[in-house]
């Protein structure tokens, strides 16, 4: 066959190479599937497992990343909150919003948010009683918002402070999490509500908030003064709303 191939045209050689590449790709897939099955069998063998500590750290990192991804998607399509003089304004970019074209409910909500803008967003009460806050020593920014109530069983598991975004992750033993993030709103805020199971507005304190529930994750976002606040969680809506309600300005 060696000689036959050598004497064949370039065209035939090219076909040979393509077939070989297809076979290699298929082989990698077949072997990979076998390895995945083998990996599943090893999941009960402690000799081949990550230490619980490392495993937890990785899961946290993945979860955090997924939350950010969901939030990015959440920000993707709909309106804009522009924070100037503590005014919330949701701008709709019809040209970019395929979701808007198919989601009358969401359109209505956005219109309501735009029309209901008033001065209440500037009326923020500051609390100086730090002891009423959860993990008050963690929240070190000037004019920072912090929760005053944490749902039962939750514990602080990570804090991410990069100078512009302050994110705190709380988790419980049932793998439920609540991530609370705050940052200065700079520019447009966009929400991806495509195929969302629930879209509604509610009040968090004096601010009107957008609540989107999608794929088992609830996202609540609202604005207070110059701060854009949002919560991402896989817990029950009521629990997350109660947590959101508890958030107050502490400095």
């Amino acid at each position, binding site marked *: 066959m060696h000689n036959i191939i050598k004497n064949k045209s370039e065209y035939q050689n090219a076909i040979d190479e393509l077939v070989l590449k297809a076979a*290699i790709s298929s082989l990698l897939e077949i072997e990979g599937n076998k390895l995945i099955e083998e990996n599943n069998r090893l999941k009960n063998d402690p000799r081949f497992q990550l230490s619980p500590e490392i495993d937890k750290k990785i899961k946290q990192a*993945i979860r955090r990343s997924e939350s950010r991804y969901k939030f990015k998607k959440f920000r993707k399509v709909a309106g804009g909150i522009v924070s100037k003089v503590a005014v919330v304004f949701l701008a709709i970019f019809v040209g970019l919003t395929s979701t808007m074209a198919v989601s009358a409910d969401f359109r209505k909500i956005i219109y309501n948010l735009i029309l209901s803008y008033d001065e209440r967003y500037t009326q923020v009460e500051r609390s100086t009683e730090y002891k009423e806050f959860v993990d008050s020593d963690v929240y070190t920014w000037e004019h920072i918002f912090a929760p005053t109530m944490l749902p039962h069983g939750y514990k602080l598991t990570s804090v991410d402070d990069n100078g512009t975004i302050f994110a705190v992750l709380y988790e419980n033993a049932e793998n439920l999490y609540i991530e609370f993030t705050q940052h200065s709103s700079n520019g447009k805020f966009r929400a991806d509500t495509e195929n969302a199971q629930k879209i509604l507005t509610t009040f968090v304190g004096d601010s009107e908030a957008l609540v989107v529930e999608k794929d088992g994750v609830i996202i609540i976002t609202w604005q207070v003064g110059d701060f854009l606040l949002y919560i991402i969680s896989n817990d029950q809506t009521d629990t997350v709303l109660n947590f959101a309600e508890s958030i107050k300005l502490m400095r």
Partner: protein
Amino acid sequence: MVLSIILAIENEDDRNLMLYLYSEFYGIFKSKAYGIIKDYMMAEDIVQDAVIKMMDRMPKMRGLTKPQAVSYACRTVNSVAIDYYRKHIRGTTKEVLSVSGNDEFTDTSQSPPEIYERLEEYEKLGEALLQLSERDKDLIYNKYFLGLSDREIGLLLEMEHTNVRVSLNRARNRAKNILTKMSGDNNA
């Protein structure tokens, strides 16, 4: 330590892929490393080294399916483990090197290359190549699937890069022969 390195990956998609592979398939990675090194602690280090090595090849791994990525990652673990064996354990056992090798494959060419056209089923093509030695598969994967240069393959497989081309040609011919033979059997 490896976790810190993964978390430092700038590209979020790459970081997530590595986190996913490392956490979800750590078991099979360690098992493969242990199969060669026979030391649990060392196998753990091998996996970490392999992950760091994979990070250099993230752009090429992005297009892989999950099974392909797992397969590729396991191959990387194997090569790191074998490399470690060569440098630190060589002489204590012979079985390890049987993972690679088998360069003396018999040429079974019988049928004309046109019969490739009759091999339409993707899976059958892959199954046919299961007959190749691990060494041949490593060479072919790295060259044809990941598009590595001879020098890169040499570094990965601990070969002189000048020998890579010859070994690769042999491996490719063996692969083609297997495909041809398989097709001939199917047509018999």
